[in-house]
């Protein structure tokens, strides 16, 4: 009975996340379009609302081109690694009180582990394509992800210290005691570092050098076509959603809000996640791209010292105020 | 400084190199021999009263049949601080079709000279990288010469023939019947004449 309930939860969450991924692509094009004085998709259905379905169908029917010099087994496996690790990370996110597929006691650690695994997928994609551009893209991406993982982990240590637990549901409960029921104010430095590391982890502008169109065509996924490319795409958006959920749970109070909406327990959670995803799009439309060495310098020389400073300050505050 | 004065100063300094001074619509050109061209241009570049530091243009001209010496390499010089200009035309005979390169004075002369070699066949000695620039590396002939016909003499470039061969071979993949043979006429020209 328990098993059946877990399977149903998995199906529901999977369906909801996939639906969000599809419409995240649609809203990205609309939001960025409106910021650029144009309209985004307008043709497929009213105001282009059926565009993701059209995109999915197109990618499904495209010819699967594999370069002859590519390493077949690894070539097939790489997008799967990315997608599986991204989806697995969704399993521990608590959407509202009592609803998480797996409410484990090491929730944050598990999400970090999954995002590190995703970097394997990127490196293997770049390597197995056996082409110079893909190789450079994979190399850059893996170095970037590894650097910013450290900063991200350290920025969350402050949250762990204040809440005393790695369990995501417990962190949300612990935030009820803070001002406004969020950890944003005591952990403002940590939040700042986490948000920047969040952009770098998901390879989004201004840190999207691995897939910078104007330099490397498409970086590590240059040689992928059709459904395989779609898998990478999905992995990227699921990564965005997971990171936004993590930010909301750790810093913005999860599902708690100023007033309770009857019947929709996940209302505030969704609003906050949508806000973060909007910030992703906003930043993409506005900012230019960092150069590779400047990106690494930012990660190692600026974010990690800030995160360490945050830990020290949190320790001092916690020992003074108990 | 007036252009004619520059020409006179050059004539004083290199008397046996300067052959003729021409003038056309207030612009002065000096026809010189090609032997000491680098020395002359370096003097024009360095001399404080000349300071012709901007090489505006370097090109070749083919005077087939009009003059005794077939080619000329023309240097258009301008001085940014002193605001005067001059043109130096060095004669290059057909049988000794080479001249010294001026890349030691102006780095930018590099690509100018490559183009001159590409289109005329005039080789530049001591050039860092003498090879064709605008045309493919295996092109035969020098197109801007007057005896090179406008339509290329009727025969195609070897690379183009290879592409046509390849398209014939790959025609078996033409599933939708969209292939159009570029070597056959489309029938539009005859319609236009009517």
């Amino acid at each position: 009975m328990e098993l059946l309930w877990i399977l149903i939860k998995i199906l529901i969450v999977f369906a909801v996340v996939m639906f969000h991924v599809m419409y995240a692509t649609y809203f990205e094009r609309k939001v960025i379009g409106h910021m650029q004085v144009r309209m985004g998709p307008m043709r497929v259905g009213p105001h282009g609302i059926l565009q993701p379905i059209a995109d999915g169908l197109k990618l499904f029917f495209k010819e699967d081109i594999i370069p002859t010099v590519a390493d077949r087994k690894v070539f097939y496996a790489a997008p799967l690694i990315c997608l599986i690790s991204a989806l697995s990370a969704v399993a521990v996110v608590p959407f509202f009180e009592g609803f998480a597929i797996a409410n484990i006691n090491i929730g944050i650690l598990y999400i970090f582990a999954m995002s590190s695994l995703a970097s394997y997928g990127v490196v293997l994609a770049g390597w197995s394509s056996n082409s110079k551009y893909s190789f450079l893209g994979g190399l850059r991406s893996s170095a970037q992800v590894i650097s910013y993982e450290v900063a991200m982990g350290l920025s969350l240590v402050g949250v762990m210290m204040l809440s005393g637990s790695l369990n995501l549901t417990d962190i949300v409960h612990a935030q009820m005691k803070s001002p406004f029921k969020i950890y944003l104010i005591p952990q403002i430095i940590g939040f700042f570092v986490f948000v920047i590391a969040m952009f770098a982890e998901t390879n989004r502008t201004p840190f999207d050098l691995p897939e910078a169109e104007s330099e490397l065509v498409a970086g590590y996924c240059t040689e992928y076509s059709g459904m395989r490319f779609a898998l990478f795409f999905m992995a990227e958006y699921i990564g965005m959603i997971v990171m936004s959920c993590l930010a909301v749970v750790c810093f913005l109070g999860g599902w708690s809000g100023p007033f309770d909406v009857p019947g929709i327990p996940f209302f505030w959670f969704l609003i906050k996640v949508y806000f973060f995803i909007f910030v992703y799009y906003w930043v993409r439309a506005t900012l230019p791209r960092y150069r590779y060495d400047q990106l690494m310098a930012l990660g190692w020389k600026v974010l990690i010292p800030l995160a360490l400073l945050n830990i020290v300050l949190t320790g001092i505050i916690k020992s003074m105020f108990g | 400084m007036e252009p004619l004065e520059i020409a006179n100063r050059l004539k004083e300094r290199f008397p046996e190199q300067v052959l003729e001074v021409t003038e056309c619509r207030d612009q002065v050109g000096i026809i010189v021999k090609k032997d000491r061209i680098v020395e002359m241009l370096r003097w024009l570049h360095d001399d404080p009263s000349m300071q012709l530091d901007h090489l505006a243009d370097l090109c070749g001209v083919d005077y087939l049949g009009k003059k005794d010496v077939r080619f000329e390499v023309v240097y258009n010089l301008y001085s940014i601080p002193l605001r005067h200009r001059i043109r130096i035309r060095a004669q290059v005979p057909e049988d000794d079709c080479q001249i010294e390169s001026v890349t030691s004075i102006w780095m930018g002369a590099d690509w100018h000279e490559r183009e001159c070699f590409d289109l005329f066949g005039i080789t530049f000695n001591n050039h860092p990288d003498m090879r064709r620039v605008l045309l493919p590396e295996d092109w035969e002939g020098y197109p801007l010469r007057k005896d090179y016909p406008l339509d290329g003499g009727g025969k195609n470039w070897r690379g183009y023939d290879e592409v046509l061969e390849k398209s014939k071979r790959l025609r078996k993949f033409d599933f939708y019947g969209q292939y159009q043979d570029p070597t056959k006429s489309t029938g539009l020209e005859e319609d236009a004449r009517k």
Partner: protein
Amino acid sequence: MPENKAESKEIVREEVAYEPYTIAMGPQHPATHGVLKLDLELDGETILNCKPTVGFLHRGVEKLAENLSYAQTLPLTDRLDYIASMANNVAYSIAVEKLLGIEVPMRAKYIRTIVMEMARLTGHLLWLATHALDIGAMTVFLYCFRERENLLDMFEEICGARLTTSYTCVGGVRQDVTGHFLEALHAFTDDFPSKIAEYETLIDKNRIWLKRTQGVGIVSAKDAVSLGLTGPTLRGSGVDYDVRKHMPYDAYPYVDFEVPIGSKGDVYDRYRCRMEEMHQSNSIIRQCIEALPTGPIRSPDAPDIVMPYGEQKRVAADATFASGVIKLMKDNEHYIDGDVYVSAEVPKGELGFYFVSDGRGVPYRMHIRSPSYIHIGALPFLCKGQMVADVIAIIGSVDVVLGECDR
């Protein structure tokens, strides 16, 4: 036993040859502004050597010009720098007018200055759009194209074409400007400075932009002149050379404008030069509109092809350059023996035409000194020691158009 073991475990030293990692930013690439092939030799992310290959767009304009009359070559010059084609036309026209000794009426001079500055604006707007897009700021691209649409609509109004306008002709302009055009242009120039401020808000003081462009691709003034750079690329290094001030043509002696000069010679200074030039072009257009004199728009002795009607039509149909078409042109005594070199300041730099004429109605030799060709030749020098990401920024700042490079 130890000796045997020592013998069997010989240390083998091999000579390992290190080859640099070559990557080809091939002819088809989103950032190379046309069909340009760059062979980069990399050591990690640093460039050891960079070899450009051009010629994919070579159409033999110089050879064609030797068989076409002066008026027939004009549409060929449109396609040189196809982004600012009015500027190429003006450069060609002033060169031929100098060769043939034709005096252009004042109204035509002012109109030509107006369209040349409009072409400068279109060229610089496209430069900004692609440069920002390459560095990652996508939104500036669309804002610039919004303004460019207005300018292209105005081009369409005066000559019927947006891109390849053969509007200026030898001896003046082809047709007159309408009052509606002048009003629309005046309204445009009222608005434009605020639009430039909009672009600058997005990128000018942005930390990421400054980090990407300052200190990148530095050229000293002496090196820049030696490399043959011209235009904003040269002025970013501090050299005061603008053909409009040094050898004024058209109505430039009668308008008031400044030439922005940079100091350090990096990508950021060249960017600031071009942004300032857009302001100056705006002011030049306003001055010309306000001071536009009345009068004829074409010189009476301008050589031009008469529209063949009736009997002449049959002759023109199978005319070759030796008969037919040339005979239809006005026979005048302007075709002299001689050679001239005249240059103009197009958005990309100094576009020069060197004509050699032997008295016929067809140039004996026409050489186009194109700024983009020289600038691509200077790329190996500019890119040495920079990183791959900087090459994109440098190509963007040097502003090449392959149509002009290959002719």
